[in-house]
């Protein structure tokens, strides 16, 4: 399926989709979106890039093995629960801080860290499966 058209457009397309997936991830707490959907979006971006430009190109672009990314996501998700233990509240209770950076109040929370973990897990696992399948197809 390596048509010239797809191969030319794919990098820009993928970059846009990944950017959009991060946007979806970050806005998820208030608008439709979140880590899970964002993760699926990014994973389909990588899958499409893989179809267009080949698996090795995706692997190079990702730098890390998709499963490492998934593992790191799981780690992040677990770590997000830990501050709550020190705050004397039950595990995984969301904690919020509101630093003001450049005059804008930015709400940050352990919940956001957790959502990023979910995002990475979904991206990593699904991309890993898709890439492994694409790799097999090309033999």
């Amino acid at each position, binding site marked *: 399926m390596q048509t010239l058209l797809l191969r030319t457009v794919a990098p820009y397309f993928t970059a846009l989709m990944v950017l959009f997936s991060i946007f979806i991830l970050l806005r998820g707490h208030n608008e439709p*979106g*979140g880590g899970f959907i964002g993760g699926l979006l990014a994973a389909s971006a990588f899958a499409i890039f893989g179809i267009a430009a080949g698996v090795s190109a995706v692997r190079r672009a990702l730098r890390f093995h998709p499963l490492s990314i998934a593992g790191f996501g799981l780690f992040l998700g677990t770590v997000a629960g830990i501050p709550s233990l020190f705050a004397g509240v039950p595990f995984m209770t969301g904690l919020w801080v509101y630093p003001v950076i450049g005059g804008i109040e930015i709400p940050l929370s352990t919940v956001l860290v957790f959502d990023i973990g979910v995002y990475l897990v979904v991206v990593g696992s699904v991309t890993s499966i898709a890439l492994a399948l694409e790799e097999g197809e090309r033999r």
Partner: protein
Amino acid sequence: MFSTDPVIMLLILGLPFLAALLAPTAVRIFGALAGWLLAAFPAIIFLQILGLSDVISAGGAVRGGVEWVPSLNVELSYLFDGLSFVFGLLVTGIGTLVVIYAGGYLKGHPQQGRFFSFLFLFMGAMLGLVAADNLYALFVLWEMTSITSFLLIGFGNQRAASRRAALQALIITGGGGLILMAGIVTLHMITGEASLTGVLASGDVLRESPLYLLAFLLVLGGCFTKSAQFPLHFWLPNAMEAPTPVSAYLHSATMVKAGVYLLMRLNPVMGETALWETVLPIFGGTTLLVGTFLAVRQTDLKLMLAYTTVASLGLLVMLTGWGTEKAIEGAVLYLVAHSLFKGCLFMVAGTIDHEAGTRDVTKLAGLRKVMPITFVAACLAALSMGGLPFFYGFMAKEEMYYGLLGADWSFLILAVAILGNALMLVIGAAVALKPMLGDKPDHLSKAHEGPAALWLGPIVLSVLGVIGALFSGATHELISSPMASAVYGEAVSVKILGFPTYWSTPLALSIVTIALGIALFTQIDRLRAVMTSLLNTIGWGPDKGFDQAVTGLVRLAHGITSSLQTGRLETYMVVTFVFVALCLWVPLTLGGEMPDWPVFAALQFHVWAIIALAVVGLIAVVNAKSRLNAIISLGIQGFAVALIFMLFGAPDLSFTQFMVETLSVVILALAMTKLSLTPSDHRGWGQFVLDGSIALACGAGLTIVLIAATAGPFNTNLSEFFTEYSRIIAHGRNIVNVIIVDYRGTDTLGEIGVVVITGLAIHALIRIRAAKVRAVEGDEAAADLADNGLPADLTAQTEGAR
């Protein structure tokens, strides 16, 4: 020595675990000296426990502890009364000597540090087991001794025999431990107490309970496996695969006595019933005889000792079951005597093996001149084992004969005891004298006395066996009386002297035993020949039975697996969806919850259009000739559903549906291209109709369930709660996301864990298949990987799926 504050006490009891942590480093830094240094850990604990002697001798007990899991009645609490006091001294005292011995025995072994770690882990577990007051803590430590014993038996894991022995011991003692856990739960249920202190104070509650039989059988299941009672004795001789320090420590002096310990511990509340007084002596007596007979047949020093250990454990169980005051005193005396002489003899056997290069008794002779210290130790221990006057073993034998006299079955049980003891003398003499006396053959010219680390342990233990008998008053005050009182349940005072002072029936029986023993010893070669031919005639033993049972189990599992996991994807699909249909239909019809046909609201034109789109997609799926077309058509239907979600106010759901739909089309297409895209629907009409009916049943079932679910009044409590509070409490307006990452965050954590594991599994499966493809193309290394990385039936399964 130190304070008896509970926390300090627990820290001291936990010292072996610290030693286990430090041991590898200590070996690396101090080399051969490490054994001597590490021995300080058990020595400190020994002194600390010895420091409790004032309280114990006065008939008291030392208790304390901290909570562990209060909601489950589990606490780290200890109880030191006469019984656990003596066991504690044995575990740490012999432990000290064994650590020193192991320092010499495994000198220069590349994994000596690991060995010490395992040994200390065991020591900590065993010490905890005998000290534990809480039943559940006792169970945990009980299983921990099984696991550490597994590690130690399998220490020489390059040898298949060693691995088999380790696994066998783990299966039997670990399995017995699980039975014991059920027993402990039963004890807890009956008495309502989770501590030994509480159980022991419960009086006749256990004996009078209707569940007594159950508790009895379960406790016995644990004790008999651990203490190697016939017919589950065979793991113990096999465990001789372990390095000799392990045999001396675990498989004679300490761990195998855990079962006896628990029987003794529970004797005050479970004993004195007809069941107890029948079953225990029968099993114990049988084990005693079987053990001694099998010991006679062996020529390997360690195996001879191992079978007499089995016999001794039988003797202890028999005496505990007999249950009279004197029998208990005999058991208590014998337990200590056995730990002293058997620990010593094992170390002697190890030293001979280490210095002479063999432990086959027929190849050994004349070592007394080159190994004088070991010779003295061996003789003293053997005399104690034979029960001669002025030795600890004599007191034990006299007292047990006192105890066994004067009941209905005395004649029989005494005959068993006398024969067993006589054969024990035979083996003791054979182990101690055969390698030492006579002329030294040429192949032993290099044999010499071992270093101090190797003879210190034997000599200390064997001399203690003499001192204990000579100063019997002090021995009884410190050891025997408190221990016997704890086992008997009432204060008893042991009086027996270490040598005869007047004529009595037990003395006569002793003389008979010794005379019989000496007579048999002169005929030992003939006895061995008789036993060997007898066993060859039988040809089958529980050890073989164990192998047959394991093989049978594996066959059974394989049979079940291969009949359930046929490897045909179609079968899996049919089973899965038939079950789904049943789950949907059965509750509806049986529960009479068939919904009425609902009144649908009038739909607008564009909604109808979307529904039509979904239907078109469906028709296309069913009619598609090529798989790729089918997958894409399925995508059409999915997108139509996503649009419907969007129209009815579920943007999150719709968004997710879009993404999932896209990805499943991509992944399905990729997977299908790997399999085959050519139309290959080989199903006949009959199969087609059947599959179609299953599909329709599932679809219609789901529809009806949904109608039934939406027909009832909608409970708005949850949605109102989330609408009201998600902004206030969780700082988010997107309720779905707030639920996922905040309210039910821990659930999500578990779910993403599952996602990662699924990803890993699929990745591995695809990789294995890719390796097989390469193998077909001639890549040898990949072929090995594929063959070894995958069990045969799984290979068949992946091939079937293709």
